[in-house]
């Protein structure tokens, strides 16, 4: 109870009741307040501990991987072909495989994803049917990646007879990340204020001119950020490629999109499977993980830089 109300109470005047007879006086309870302050302090420590726990686990993991890769991750490892002999093995062909996948995934997802987003946001009427499509695209983004692998196997591997080529793998991964690219591009288009579109229409510009000259230039950083993040997800995906039937040991380096291939996450997976028989495979896997992590880290950094560089002017 504060001093003012104490004095007033001594005089028999209730400050809370003085001008509003129906109002109930709120008792100030020191104990309760103390308890809440205490709870707050405890929770703060709990939340901090949780953060620390996650960081600790991550550090241990990183430490072990980096420790295991030391002595293995060198120029030879990056520039040599695969081999069953650990000392000879390198991931040159594996890197080429991953790059090949990106050569397919980037144009396919950008063209299809951005076009779809433009249609849904700028052209489609805001009808119930369109809402249905939107909800379903968001749902697709949460379908497990194995399912996309099965779809890719049936559609690209078997039906289009692409087998387990880079093209089949790339198209499968494109399917996987397409919904994410569509949704993030839609968000980027939505963030473009309507008064800019109006300004353009009022100048006699048509819809496409307005999109190309006004909407896209403003939306492109957002679109790119989303695209880079989804593409980095595609680089790290294993399950859909395993389903496609990527060879466990591929000695040839792929030279075209129709060649068989292997990719970074797949190679990590296969080497890890065999560590019981050949313990050095664990070192090879660790070295490959480091390469993959650095790639992903770089891509995510680029996305963050783009996002931070484009401050809103209007």
């Amino acid at each position: 109870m504060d001093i003012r109300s104490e004095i007033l109470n001594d005089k028999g005047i209730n400050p809370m009741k003085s001008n509003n007879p129906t109002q109930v006086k709120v008792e100030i309870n020191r104990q309760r307040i103390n308890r809440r302050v205490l709870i707050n302090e405890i929770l703060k420590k709990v939340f901090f501990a949780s953060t620390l726990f996650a960081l600790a686990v991550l550090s241990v993991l990183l430490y072990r991987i980096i420790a295991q890769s030391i002595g293995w991750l060198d120029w030879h490892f990056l520039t040599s072909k695969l081999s069953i002999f650990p000392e000879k093995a390198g991931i040159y062909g594996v890197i080429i495989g991953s790059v090949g996948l990106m050569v397919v995934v980037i144009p396919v997802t950008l063209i299809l994803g951005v076009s779809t987003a433009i249609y849904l946001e700028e052209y489609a009427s805001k009808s119930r049917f369109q809402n249905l499509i939107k909800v379903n695209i968001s749902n697709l983004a949460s379908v497990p990646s194995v399912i996309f692998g099965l779809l890719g196997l049936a559609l690209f591997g078997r039906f289009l007879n692409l087998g387990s080529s880079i093209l089949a793998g790339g198209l499968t991964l494109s399917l996987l990340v397409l919904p994410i690219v569509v949704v993030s591009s839609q968000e980027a288009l939505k963030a473009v204020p309507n008064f800019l579109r109006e300004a353009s229409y009022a100048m006699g510009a048509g819809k496409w001119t307005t999109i190309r000259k006004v909407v896209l230039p403003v939306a492109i950083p957002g679109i790119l950020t989303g695209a880079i993040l989804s593409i980095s997800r595609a680089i790290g995906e294993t399950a859909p490629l395993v389903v496609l039937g990527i060879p466990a040991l591929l000695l040839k380096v792929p030279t075209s999109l129709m060649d068989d291939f292997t990719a970074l996450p797949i190679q990590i997976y296969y080497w890890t499977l065999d560590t019981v028989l050949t313990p050095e495979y664990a070192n090879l896997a660790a070295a490959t993980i480091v390469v993959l992590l650095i790639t992903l880290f770089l891509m995510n950094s680029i996305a963050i830089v783009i996002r931070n560089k484009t401050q809103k002017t209007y």
Partner: protein
Amino acid sequence: MNQYESKIVYDVKGLNLWYGNDQALKDINIQINKNEVTAIIGPSGCGKSTFIKTLNRMIENVPNVRTSGEILYHGLNIFDKTMRVEELRTRVGMVFQKPNPFPKSIYENVLYGPKIHGVKDKQMLEEILETSLKSAALWDEVKDRLHDNAYGLSGGQQQRLCIARALAVQPDVILMDEPTSALDPIATAKIEELIDSLKADYSISIVTHSMQQAGRISDKTAFFLMGELVEFGNTEMIFSNPRDKRTEDYITGRFG
């Protein structure tokens, strides 16, 4: 005689407009002349913006809008199937309440219209740039930073840039929806001065909530109330000797 030389620019005949089931404009009949400033006044929500946005069919961007009646622009019904909105809006420029330059350079903003309509010649573009900015009384302030982003300008400068952008395609009408309501008095005075000088070459329709502004700059005044055009005539007449009681009540500040 060229169709664009007629004195009457807009001849609105029996215009009705509905947002869904709500009627926002009721049987509007009005003529807008060349080389005149027409002020549109009335209390908030009476349909001023709706009316002015109908003149260049920007209103069609609002879903569920329906119209009936005719708006003849130099004798052609703007609702006619053969009328392309792109063409109409090139001849009828618009300036909005809130300055809305593109997040591009001053140069790109002014030349947006000419460029999308296919002007490529560099020298011609530079010429359009300079005359448009000069007509909008902005040239001296920006001539040394034409390639800076438009959002570095003050609010008043941004609005004059938007006027320059509208002028760059050489329209014959400029529609303005409360163009000074977001500006300070000094910037407002500059725009009013500008409107007065533009009258020589353009027909201007301006929505304003300020009676003083209407009095200062307009030749004709239209008073809207609840979707109806209550009174339309010479500004001097409307302000000194209104025919309708409601007009008198409004301009003497009894409501609105």
